[in-house]
């Protein structure tokens, strides 16, 4: 069982590292873009609201696989070659951002109107109120859902590697090893372990964040 892992350690470890990088990049994009989209959706301007709404609808309603094909093969055929790394990380990040935005929006609605009025009364503008009072509280109330989204994103990263053949992530490498050794069960068992390490780490991190930042009301 373990010999598949030891004999093909370099494939497994490099694949795992590629997966980590995809996840890290996508997570950054998802959080930043998701925050902006959520801010748009609650802005006191109906065009910004619509723009935010459009973003969520578009990215939630297109399968990730289709996004990947469009951003890589599609764009390349149209003469824009952004490469598999950018295509993969951007697709997964922008796709997850739609869900992050929705989670944050629900968190924002859990922040009472009184909080906003208290902040405005102190002389903060609406934008500053959002940034200093509403969003920090929204983030704290949605730590758990953001954790679930992150775990889903980690698992979705496997779709990136499999669809963009030029990205040698953990699953892609596992397929290479499996084709070479015919030890299919053992190979994918170790791939699963690699993903569980990542999702487990995410679970622990988000649990710690929740403990640290939970708001007593």
């Amino acid at each position: 069982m373990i010999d598949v892992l030891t004999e093909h350690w370099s494939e497994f470890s490099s694949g795992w590292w590629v997966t980590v990088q995809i996840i890290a990049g996508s997570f950054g994009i998802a959080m930043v873009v998701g925050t902006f989209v959520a801010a748009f959706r609650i802005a006191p301007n109906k065009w910004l609201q619509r723009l935010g709404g459009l973003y969520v609808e578009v990215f939630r309603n297109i399968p990730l696989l289709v996004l990947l094909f469009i951003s890589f093969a599609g764009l390349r055929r149209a003469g824009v070659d952004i490469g598999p790394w950018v295509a993969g990380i951007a697709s997964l990040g922008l796709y997850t951002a739609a869900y992050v935005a929705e989670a944050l929006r629900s968190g924002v609605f859990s922040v009472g109107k009184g909080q906003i009025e208290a902040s405005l009364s102190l002389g903060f503008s609406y934008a500053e109120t959002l940034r200093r009072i509403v969003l920090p509280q929204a983030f704290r109330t949605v730590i758990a859902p953001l954790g679930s989204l992150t775990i889903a994103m980690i698992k979705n990263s496997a779709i990136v590697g499999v669809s963009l053949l030029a990205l040698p992530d953990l699953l892609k490498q596992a397929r290479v090893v499996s084709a070479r050794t015919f030890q299919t069960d053992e190979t994918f068992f170790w791939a699963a372990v690699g993903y569980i390490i990542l999702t487990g780490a995410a679970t622990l991190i988000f649990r710690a964040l929740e403990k640290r930042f939970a708001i007593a009301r």
Partner: protein
Amino acid sequence: MSDQNLVELQGIHKAFGDNVVLAGVDLSVARGEVIVIAGPSGSGKSTMLRCVNGLETADRGEITFDGRPVKPGKGLSALRAEIGFVFQQFHLFPHMSVLDNIVLAPVKVKGIARDAARTRGQELLERVGIAEKAHQFPAELSGGQQQRVAIARALAMDPKLMLFDEPTSALDPEMIREVLDVMRDLAREGMTMLVVTHEMGFAREVCDRLVFIDGGLIVEEGPPAEFFANAQSERAREFVDKIIHH
């Protein structure tokens, strides 16, 4: 400039849909004056107070604060920074310590150095009698303590005017005193205050003028003693009876 009234309300109308809440309110508030606003529930007291710092926008009429119009737009945040507002439900920021609640706006809105703001914040906490709570979170405090923090938070901006919307109505009876004491001290120090409250003992003792509002109109106003002794209108007399003899 400074001999003019601090606040002027002229012909304020406000409706929510078909519900006419303010039907032409006029009120002048002199500097240093303490006014209690009383009236039955739903008579428009909160709405009137919220118009003064622009949390609500009047449909008609004009409000000036310190000579400047209170209206939506660019200058409104700057005006609000000079007007303290104390809510019935406190509305402290639950994700910040007590001291951070107080220091936030002076630092971020007025640009005061953090150290100076913290020193001042600690002084204010002492003044409202809860210096030892500086590093706790709002949820760890009693209602009365939270409301005193809310008052300290407003005072940290050095406001020219303090608005109170039923500051003791959400409190257990034994905590009402401690909040009213802070407000009385503030009044004695010369703060201009508009206070919506049912605490008629406070009104009698502290305020310069009592304004009775009913059906979106100021029905009666004058020194509190006069109001309690011989209110002119029927509604005001009913109100006095109910409040005093319950």
